[in-house]
């Protein structure tokens, strides 16, 4: 169950994807929102052309944790639900597959926003 190789490959592949992202940041001064959308779309395209599944099999969490994996599971959810439920699946599949992540991000952000105050504006006043 516990396999050191999984960790090594996750580290290397995840690191390499971020390395590519950092090259983009240095070359084009791309903003956070654009970089997230770009990698999300890359993930979707990989999934549609059936490249992502073997990549996921190979890279484990290194493929699932980057936002590429989020895009791929949106696309896969829509495709699987379409195969299973027909036309309605086109609209329900994507968000169903990623509901956990999005819900947790919104819920945790809301709760922690109520608890914590901004730390970035220290000094100055």
């Amino acid at each position: 169950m516990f396999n050191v190789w999984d960790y090594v490959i996750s580290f290397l592949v995840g690191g390499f994807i971020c390395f590519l992202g950092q090259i983009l940041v240095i070359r084009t001064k791309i903003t956070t929102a654009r970089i997230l959308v770009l990698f999300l779309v890359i993930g979707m395209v990989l999934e549609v052309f059936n490249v992502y599944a073997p990549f996921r099999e190979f890279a484990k969490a290194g493929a699932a944790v980057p936002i590429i994996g989020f895009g791929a599971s949106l696309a896969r959810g829509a495709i699987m639900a379409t195969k299973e439920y027909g036309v309605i699946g086109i609209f329900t599949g994507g968000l169903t597959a990623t509901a956990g992540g999005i819900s947790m991000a919104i819920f945790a952000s809301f709760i922690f926003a109520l608890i914590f105050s901004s730390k970035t504006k220290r000094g100055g006043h």
Partner: protein
Amino acid sequence: MDKQKRNTNYNIYVESKIPKTKAWPSLFKAFLVGGLICAIGQGFYDLYSYFFPNLAESELTSCMLMTIIFITCFLTGLGIYDVIGAWGGAGSVIPITGFSNSISSPAIEFKKEGIIYGICVKMFTIAGPVIVCGVVGSIICGFVGLFN
């Protein structure tokens, strides 16, 4: 004409004064931070597959992502993730933790403007385009799946 020349000269001057990001150290840092976040994700994946052996692979992945999203929101609240972000650059943006941070960071930042117009609205300033593109893209993918 003269004005134009002056403007180009000024732009060259500004360009020379902008602090250059040193390429190689920042690439290495992005690699290190991104890789570590993915390795931590793999750790949670193995942990959940040990304790819940009858969950499917996609459910385990979902649980693992939810865990690191929750941890990131907490670290953002404490102000620790900003430090990681300043050090790691894209290494902290491209993992799903960057998506999570992009929701929680403005939510905490704009808390002063109230719950509805502060937290709830500003939450989606960066994550909004991601969710919109994600939903639109997944619907297009669904149509593609329909004809395959």
